[in-house]
């Protein structure tokens, strides 16, 4: 397969987006087009990219080949040349594969979910544009191009969250997402600039940077590592830049599934893995990353335990799982982190899609305590969501078990017992809140029998099934040797793994059992509380946890109100009082001087005589001095 097809992985969705955009403009200005036209382009694009990606994957199986395709020279400044180049190595091809696979099926799901929406074409335009940006991000050969993709996904996230723009709150949520991303991007840019300052004289692609990275002094390297991670904090919703993720649920559910579960939020993890050559040299920063991940994970799980909106529970669960991924990449097990990205994509997308199906079925109801007893109404959704919930709770043989286990094992083996403990506690909480959701939605006595269950289209059901299969099977690539597997993904991403102390097989078994046991504790507590939940007793919720620890309120007060006060201060004090005053005073000064001077014409003869006297005096003094 010729190299230039690498570019087409990105180009196909991009072109499709452009065509969709033009078609949409046509359909609202000239003549309406049916949904099928849009679906044709929108749905085929991801799968075409998938097939191209598969082609490259097969080429790369069994060898360490890295394929770089240079499309054109993008920038040349002095000695530095930046190309629009794509890089297919094991990491990026792996990402391409599951992004297009999961993404493609979410596109199919969206075709069913959004079928009645007037902006159908616009939706797919944004969706394909997003996919193109995400693929550009992972396939970029230098950090600048990656940043182009990074910004692109941020933009599309904003566009898609504010999709139902008629409601002002949705637009505010979109703004919030964009701004929090932007705050993170500032850190990212600062990190990139610093990196460029040290190594960027001749080339600035990944290979070039990794070759020159040893010349960067350690303090600068630490600064770069932290700054780049700030970008990841914004994109991947870790503390303190996570506040946009729950609000982002205001967008349509396919958006939440694709962007905020499977792809965009994992860009931060990818970035850390991509820059592994930097983070390998600064293990302190890595530890800091791991701790942020751990605390974000714990924090999000705590909040999720008390939420009632189904999508918000899933949003916090995403943040929590992202925390796990950062624990892994922070400690240097990049391949394990990417493995969790992979498994998480499947089960989280499945969870969101299932939740979306339930929401549609119940006419846009999102409060879980107003659902209940859905098991007999929507058995397919019930079954697929059960698989996903088991996966996220870490029950074998589903994929989540393997990836989560690897993360915790890595923490334990490196001696980071606190991180391991936080991970286990969070696993208990994860199991608890996920099964709380599951039991409340699908079991429980539903006293509200007057609801009509809306039909859920086939477009939406098929992806659920496919992804459920994916959830079951995706764990297979990472079965560790201790259980008889070959740890395929570890081998595939060998260049991105760091060694740690060997742990005996017995210890591994014990740790695994602890994980499973922890999950069962969570499930058991949820079962006891919520299995036969009486729907009429909707709990009144209040308190610190329910109010998400008031983080939003604090941010609002400090940043939003702070900035507003600062700008009104500047407007009033500085602009009006100071600058305007200065200009007014200047012109008034001229007028006053004129008046003052004109008073000399006061027709008082003696005054004139006095002035003449001073004049004579001055002239005499001058002459004395001049003539000696």
């Amino acid at each position, binding site marked *: 397969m010729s190299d230039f097809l690498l570019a087409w992985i990105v180009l196909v969705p991009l072109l499709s987006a452009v065509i969709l955009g033009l078609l949409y403009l046509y359909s609202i200005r000239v003549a309406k087009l049916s949904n099928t036209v849009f679906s044709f382009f929108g749905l085929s694009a991801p799968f075409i990219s998938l097939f191209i990606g598969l082609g490259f994957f097969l080429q790369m199986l069994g060898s360490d080949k890295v394929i770089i395709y240079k499309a054109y020279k993008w920038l040349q400044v002095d000695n530095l040349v930046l190309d629009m180049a794509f890089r297919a190595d094991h990491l990026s091809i792996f990402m391409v594969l599951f992004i297009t696979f999961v993404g493609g099926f979410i596109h199919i799901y969206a075709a069913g979910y959004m079928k009645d929406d007037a902006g159908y074409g616009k939706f797919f335009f944004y969706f394909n544009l997003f996919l193109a940006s995400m693929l550009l991000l992972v396939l970029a050969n230098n950090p600048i191009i990656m940043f182009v993709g990074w910004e692109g996904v941020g933009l599309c996230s904003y566009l898609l969250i504010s999709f139902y723009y008629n409601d002002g709150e949705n637009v505010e949520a979109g703004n919030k997402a964009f701004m929090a991303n932007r705050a993170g991007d500032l850190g990212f840019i600062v990190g990139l600039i610093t990196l460029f300052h040290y190594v960027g004289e001749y080339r600035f692609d990944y290979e070039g940077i990794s070759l020159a990275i040893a010349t960067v002094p350690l303090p600068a390297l630490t600064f770069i590592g932290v700054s780049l991670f700030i970008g990841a904090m914004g994109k991947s919703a870790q503390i303190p830049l996570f506040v946009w993720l729950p609000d982002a649920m205001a967008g349509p559910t396919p958006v939440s599934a694709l962007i905020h579960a499977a792809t965009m939020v994992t860009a931060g993890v990818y970035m850390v893995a991509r820059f592994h050559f930097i983070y390998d040299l600064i293990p302190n920063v890595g530890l800091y990353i791991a701790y942020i991940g751990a605390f974000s994970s714990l924090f999000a799980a705590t909040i999720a335990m008390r939420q009632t909106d189904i999508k918000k529970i899933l949003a916090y669960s995403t943040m929590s799982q992202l925390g796990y991924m950062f624990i892994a990449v922070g400690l240097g097990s990049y391949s394990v982190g990417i493995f969790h990205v992979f498994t998480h994509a499947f089960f989280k997308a499945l969870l969101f899609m299932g939740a979306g199906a339930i929401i549609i079925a119940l006419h846009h109801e999102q409060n879980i305590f107003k659902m209940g007893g859905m098991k007999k109404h929507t058995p397919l959704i019930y079954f697929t969501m059960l698989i996903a919930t088991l996966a996220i709770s870490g029950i074998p043989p589903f994929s989540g078990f393997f990836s989560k286990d690897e993360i915790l094992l890595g923490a334990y083996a490196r001696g980071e017992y606190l991180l391991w403990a936080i991970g286990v506690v969070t696993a208990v909480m994860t199991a608890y809140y996920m099964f709380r959701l599951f039991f409340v939605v699908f079991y429980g006595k539903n006293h509200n029998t007057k609801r009509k269950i809306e039909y859920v289209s086939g477009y939406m059901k098929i992806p659920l099934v496919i992804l459920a299969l994916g959830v079951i099977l995706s764990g297979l690539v990472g079965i560790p040797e201790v259980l008889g597997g070959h740890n395929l993904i570890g081998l595939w991403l060998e260049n991105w793994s760091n060694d740690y102390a060997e742990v005996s097989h017995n210890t591994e078994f014990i740790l695994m059992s602890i994980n499973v046991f922890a999950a069962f504790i969570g499930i058991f507590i949820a079962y006891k509380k919520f299995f036969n939940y009486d729907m009429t007793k909707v709990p009144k919720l209040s308190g610190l946890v329910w109010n998400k620890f008031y983080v939003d309120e604090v941010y609002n007060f400090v940043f939003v109100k702070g900035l507003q006060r600062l700008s009104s201060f500047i407007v009033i004090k500085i602009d009006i009082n100071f600058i305007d005053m200065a200009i007014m005073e200047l012109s008034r000064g001229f007028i006053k001087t004129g008046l003052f001077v004109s008073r000399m014409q006061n027709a008082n003869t003696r005054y004139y005589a*006095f002035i003449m006297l001073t004049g*004579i*005096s001055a002239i*005499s003094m001058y002459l*004395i001095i001049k*003539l000696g």
Partner: protein
Amino acid sequence: MIDIVFAFLSLTAIGGGLGMIVLAQPIYSAFSLIVSMVAIAGIFALLSSPFLFAVQIIIYAGAIITLLLFVIMFLNIKNENLPQEPNKFNIIIVGAILLVPFNILIIKAFNTLPHKSMKILSTDFGSVQVFGMELFRSWLIPFELISMLLLSALVGAVVYARKEKSNG
């Protein structure tokens, strides 16, 4: 001897001048001025111009200041109607300071002239005959012009001071 006379005369002149500008009532200032005028006439005499000495006394002290005295008495200003002058000393002092450079300049300029004796001449320099000859020989036209000037001043003064029947 001459020096003493000169010193006496100059001091009188200066004293009269100072008195003129310091005294509050115009009558007293006018008397001061008369004293000064007479002293100046004496200075003219010291400078070998007897004719001017006489002219100064007759016309200046005898006519001009007298006219002034008439007008002052004619207007009959009461003490309280005099203009208030609270700051006159301050202004005099400031003015004096301002005038110093001017004086220095003029005196320096005159210093460049070589020294010559200024004794009173015993010739008829400055006598009436010589004065008259000079006047009607080279200064005839200015003489005539002065007479026309005096005429017009006379007419003008009378016209101005008429009672307001027409335009006063």
